């Protein structure tokens, strides 16, 4: 028995030794400086929002519409017991194409204490976008308010500026 065990141990040692000899460090792919973004579609445009400001993606079941609010306020929904305002960026960016939203997924944005949910046509997923990939003065962006958009990348994804867009002063309704 013990002889058998000894041989096995020896075998393991040899294998381990060989493994160590053959081992190579994992090649780290080169990543340019940049950030992760949540990419979503809206009115046939792709938008990206810094993941640091994206709280979660939720499936919208029902929205309470609030009368007497501007068009970009879709309504209010209950997210685990607390109320969140739902925003339709299409109206805010003046791109109200005659389309109905293609999905029931909304992206919850959080900027400090400020929280809203954005309606989307689809949440595409996470994407790494490098800083130098973002062009800030493309002609495509002329239709959008400058202060709320950081730029656009090669894939025509519009990068939002959450710091300026998602705050009370910009979206507030105070009648």
């Amino acid at each position: 028995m013990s002889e058998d065990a000894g041989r096995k141990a020896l075998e393991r040692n040899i294998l381990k030794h060989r493994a160590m000899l053959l081992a190579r460090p994992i090649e780290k792919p080169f990543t340019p400086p940049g950030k992760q973004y949540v990419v979503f579609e809206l009115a046939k445009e792709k938008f990206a929002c810094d993941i640091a400001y994206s709280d979660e993606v939720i499936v919208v079941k029902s929205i309470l519409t609030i009368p007497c609010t501007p068009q970009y306020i879709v309504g209010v929904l209950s997210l685990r017991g607390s109320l969140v305002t739902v925003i339709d960026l299409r109206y805010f960016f003046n791109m109200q194409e005659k389309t109905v939203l293609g999905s029931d997924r909304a992206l919850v944005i959080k900027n400090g204490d400020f929280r809203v949910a954005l309606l989307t046509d689809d949440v595409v997923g996470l994407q790494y976008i490098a800083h130098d990939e973002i062009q800030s003065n493309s002609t495509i962006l002329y239709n959008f308010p400058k202060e709320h958009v950081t730029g656009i990348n090669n894939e025509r994804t519009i990068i939002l500026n959450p710091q300026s867009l998602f705050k009370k002063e910009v979206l507030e309704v105070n009648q």
Partner: protein
Amino acid sequence: MSVDLEFLKKLREAFQIEATEHLEEVSTTLLSLEKNPGLAQSQASIEKMLRNFHSLKGSSRAVNLSLIEKTCQEIESILVEHKSASRELSADLTDDLYKLACSMLSCVTSLDLASGNTSGENELEKQLTGALFRSSKVPELESNPISDYVSNGGDSPGENQEDVKVQHHLASLSTGTMRVSVDRMEEIVKRLEELVYAKLVADQRLTDCDDLQSILGKWTRQWHRIRPEVENEAQKSGHKQKNYIQEFIDLHDSFVGRLQEKLLNLETSFQQEKRITHNLVDGLLEKSRELTMTPFSVLQDLFERIVRDIAKQQSKDVKLILAGGETEIDRHILDDFKEPMIHLLRNSIDHGIESTKDRLEKGKPEQSNIRVTLSMIDSGKVEISIKDDGRGIDLAKIKERAVSMRIMTPEKAEETSEQQLYALLFRSSFSTKDEVSDISGRGIGLAIVKETIEKLGGQIEIDSKLNEGTTFRMIVPVRRATMFGVTAVVDNQTLVVPTSAIRSAIRVRDCDSRIVQGRWTLTFGERLVPMVWLADILDLDNKVDHEEAVALICGKGDYPVAILVEEVTGEQEVAVSPLPTPLTRVRHITGATLLKTGDLAAVINVNDVLSSAHLLGSNADALEARRARKAKTGSNAATKKILVTDDSITSRVLLKNILESNDYQVEVANDGEDAWQKLQTKRFDLLITDVEMPKMSGFELTKKIRTESTFSDMPIIVVTSLASLEDRKTGVEVGASAYFVKSNFEKSNLIDMVKRLI
């Protein structure tokens, strides 16, 4: 006498809390000093402790605890000595001070609130003399302190300290107060309010159970009726079949029996649960609301300061006398009440009280009094009166003003009662224009005061005698009541209207409604009340004729308004949550609440609605224009043509019916090719198409329209049973404007979609 006792008790209670705080602070200071001795720390600690002991000295004098006062005095002098000499506190002295603090604490905690006696004084005295002896300062007052100390000094000091510590520990646990930040408490109270939903759910479940029982009951009755026939039929059939059927009948009966029994059990337990939930929630809510009750007197300082400042400004001599300040009122109500109260005080000094010269001429004392009196009246309400002894309100001037503003004719003014004339002062338009000395400034401000008070669910009235003074009398609830709301339907939306704002609800059909001077009005009681559609105010669509509508009579006082809704579905308790950011304030909407069904509903701000109703009323043209606009969009629907393409006849008929019931012109096609043909010959505003169809699929059709036709910008809705993401993508790629999955097919949704597209 008993009041005094009560007062002393309160005073001692307050002292106890304050003293405990000071002594605990001292202990911490000493303990940290013990850990890090040094001159700098010593000096800082002395500074700190001097403040503590100084305040403690003062407050112990107020409750007559001379020993503690004396101890503080002695300690202060020791500390001052150290401070001026920039000397470090020795470890021994630190220890002594600590022991003294502990003894004082036990004195304080053992203080009997009723009698003011305290045990532990002997102990303290002993310690004090010991400490003084050691700090080499011979006490002047004690005759034989040293021997006393020595004879009792047999106890080892360590043990002694231990004792004190244990005592201290126990004592602080048994004192009945704890400091909790208001924010935290409010948060908890707010959460508790949401428990109302648990009650609603319990109610709803019981109702559901009842519904189930009645369904099963109906079934059973039906079954009993046809059972003999079934058995008869079974007898006629073959032996084998007969057995099967009989077996099934028996099985069915026992099954239904068991179901009924289970349901009955469920009902009993639901009932029990409902009772328990209601009791628990109501109890908790009541207790939590009591937690936030505060005596009115907390505002006394503020009021006194304001009175003094304004009086000084106007060089008048005014004294504020508060009675009944101990009355406890909910913090929120008190908070909301503060502003109107300040306004009224300002008003009284500014306009009510004469200048000193005038007062003396009138033979009044130079100093004037403003009496604020609170008294509880039944059912949780408090009456607050503000009475000044100034010049009073000149009724003649109000009449004059009312006539000049054409509110009433001179004859009518003579007939009008005093109260009605005073009520004019609360109208926001009254006396805002050119100056009327006696009542100027009372216009707008008083309107706001009245609004605030009414918002709190209270009322306000004025009483005045010329040259003797004016009294403002207000009645407000002392605590917030659970809010009830009526659920009403407008434009397929359920809205909640606070019950407290509704005076009555009637079907318009049941009362006399007609157009008076260009406005729809209905007769309520003996009054003609203007009617306004809630839908018009909220800019929603009206679904019914006014004969079918329910009128909610709202508005306080003499100006009720009938607010028309399509339907009233019930009443329920509501816990209103304010709207989330960025919705700081939305016109006509107070917040949102959960309905019994678990859905959210908007809560109407009746005050806003009423003021909008007045605006709408006075601006009849605007309303007419709005109506016309709405009518136009309505008639638009009739001219819109829609082509429905589906190979299934059921779907076709269903879609056609839904659309036609919403006044659209509908034509149908059996498949893509058929649709394509129809589209060539006629113009349609919208295409609704299925995906899977023979000859040409919905996607092919869409693609063809988008690429090959002259009407490529026509909106297209794709309706299908396919729910996969892949299809959705294809749909969007080929150019569908909207994509609709049959499985979550809802009538209103489709119509909404159509409306948005054309």
